[in-house]
Structure formats: C-alpha cells, structure tokens
C-alpha cells in the first residue's frame, strides 16, 4: 500500500498524468472548436440536455477543455484545471453511462464527429482504445474515460508540481520572503 502511495505521489507520476491528460484535452478540443455544429449535434444525440443549452455548451466547453489542457501541461493554475478536468470527465462518464443503459449506439463526439476521422493523435487514441478494449463503441469509450479519471486523482490529491509554473512561482515567492 505504501509502495502504491509512493508511486502515485512521485513527482514523475504526477507530471506524466498532467501531460497525458493535458494533451488529451487539447486534442479533444480542436475539432469541437473548429466544427461547433457537429459537436452540438453530438451533444444533442445524447438526449440529455434541453435544446436551449446545447449550443452554448458546444461553444464554450471546448475552450474550457483547451485551456485546462494547456494549463495542465505548463502547470499553471493546476489545482483549478485538474478540478475542472475531473468534473468534465465525471460528466462525460455519466452521459455515456446513461446512453449505454438506454442501449443507444450514438457517436461519442469525443474527438471527432464520426469515428475514424481526425489527426494522427486522435487516430492513435482510437487505435489504442480498440486494441486494448476492442470495438466496444460506447462501452470502451466509457472505460477509457474512467482510466483518465483515475489518472486525474493523483494530481487532485498530491500537491507536488514538478516542472510547473505553479512550482516556479511558489519558489520565487518563498525566495522573496527569505
């Protein structure tokens, strides 16, 4: 147990989690920002939100993803970013679960309007998902999101911010006081 804790709070683990999540959120945001209509349709297909909220969310959520992604990588406002990322992942997991229970096979709208599109990174994520979990559609997407949520938890709990602007600012402040 102690070994696991030590591994989870190791500065390198935290940096890797931050960078992986940051990269994923940046990549996920790009198509949504470029093609808001397609992302709005994907949200609509989930059949969870009232129509009036669909477009505002389609227009703003991708920017939250992008900014949180960038902030996680550079380690700026890490505490706030990781909480927003965690909240988004929880929302995605709930939305996917609702539609899995309903038995509806919709496109997840995670990285592109349709599966198989997108750039090298989104295709790599798709390939890894299919290789590790099979072509499970929404269920493999759900497992993927849960794994990402698990990666967010160490960053939420442990405060070490190796290789981050936050850390740099903190040490600068300490030096000033000294």
């Amino acid at each position, binding site marked *: 147990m102690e070994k696991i804790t030590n591994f989870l709070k190791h500065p390198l683990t935290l940096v890797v989690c931050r960078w992986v999540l940051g990269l994923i959120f940046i990549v996920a945001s790009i198509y949504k*920002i*470029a*093609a*808001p*209509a*397609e992302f*709005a*349709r994907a949200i*609509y*297909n989930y*059949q969870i939100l009232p*129509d*009036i909220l*669909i*477009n*505002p969310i*389609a*227009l*703003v*959520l*991708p*920017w*939250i993803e*992008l*900014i*949180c992604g960038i*902030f996680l990588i550079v380690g700026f*406002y890490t*505490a*706030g*970013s990781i*909480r*927003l990322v965690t909240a988004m992942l929880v929302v995605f997991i709930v939305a996917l679960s609702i*539609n899995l229970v*309903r*038995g*509806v*096979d*919709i*496109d997840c709208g995670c990285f*592109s*309007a*349709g*599966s*198989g*599109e997108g750039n090298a990174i989104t295709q790599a994520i798709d390939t890894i998902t299919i290789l590790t979990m099979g072509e499970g559609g929404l269920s493999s997407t759900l497992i993927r999101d849960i794994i990402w949520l698990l990666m967010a938890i160490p960053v939420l709990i442990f405060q070490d911010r190796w290789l981050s602007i936050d850390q740099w600012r903190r040490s600068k402040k300490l030096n000033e006081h000294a």
Partner: protein
Amino acid sequence: MNIIKQMAIIIGISLALGILNNIINPNGIAWVGTYKSVDDVSGIVADANAEEAVPADTSSTADNSDSILPNFDTEDVKIYEISLERAYKLYETKQAIFVDARYPADYEQGRIPGSINLPNDMFEDYYPDVGMLIGIDDPLVIFCSGPGCDLSALLADNLRYLGHTKLMIFEAGYPAWKAAGYPVEGAE
C-alpha cells in the same frame, strides 16, 4: 477560495474566447439552436403491407417481388417504416435505392454495398451532388445507425420536402444489417 478563483478565471476566459471565436469562425452557430427531433416529423407510418410481404414462401416469385413495396401515395407522401427483413428483400430484388444517413466517416468504415451516403447533418453540402443519383420517384430505403439514431427519419423528411415521394426507413439500421450477416463492404 484560491482554487475557486482559478476555476472561475478559466471558465471566464473560455467564455470570452468562445464568444469571440463564434463571431469570427465561419462555421459559427446560433447561440440558441433549434433541434428537430424525430417526434417533429409527421407522417411516419408502419407499412401495412409489411406482414404479407415478408414471408419467404414465395408462391410466385415474379408477382411477389412487385408487392414488397408499400403502396406509395404521391399526393400525401408518407414515410414508411419497414423491417430489416423487408429492407433486405428490397435490396436483393433491387427495388429500392439504399440511402445511408450517417456521417461519411461511418460510411467509409462499413456500408451496405451500393448504398449512397447522404449525411443528414451535411444535407445542404451533399444533396446537390448526391441528389443527381436518385430520381424523384425512386423508392428509397433510408437508414442510419439503429434505434436512437434519428438521422434517417430527419433525412426522409428533408427528401420529402424536396419532392421525393417514395420514402422508406428501416429503423434497425446498419448495425442490425451487419449483425444479420447481410452484405457489407468497407474498411472494417
């Protein structure tokens, strides 16, 4: 408090960038969208001929193949819901054109051979070209990715609006077609 402030700042910046981008992005959308759902499409009917047409005990093959199309009413155009078996029968006997309402990426991954891709969400971009392939009086079997996918009903409604008169949808869609072992082609 500090963390809440951070989150508020991130959301604030996102909101500002979202608003700004929606002004300058040529693909911008209205802030309040109107979403038509399948419930708003009128005149979807279960096909009355479905029962007698499906059985495989083809007593007289030639006559039977005539009767598997619904009785289309060109005055009051309805959208007929047909079963998977019936869709396959129409496919086998080449009595209808199959129109795939899903996104191009899905179509590329796997499709019904000979089907035409007319993604409903890109209707205005695709119809000018794809519309050339389908006559106004051609019987059309429209489908998407199964129950819960309303693209086929919406596409049928759009095609009806443009004057197409022989519209059928099969709700089971591509996944059921593939699962039934009917012909598919594509990258999968």
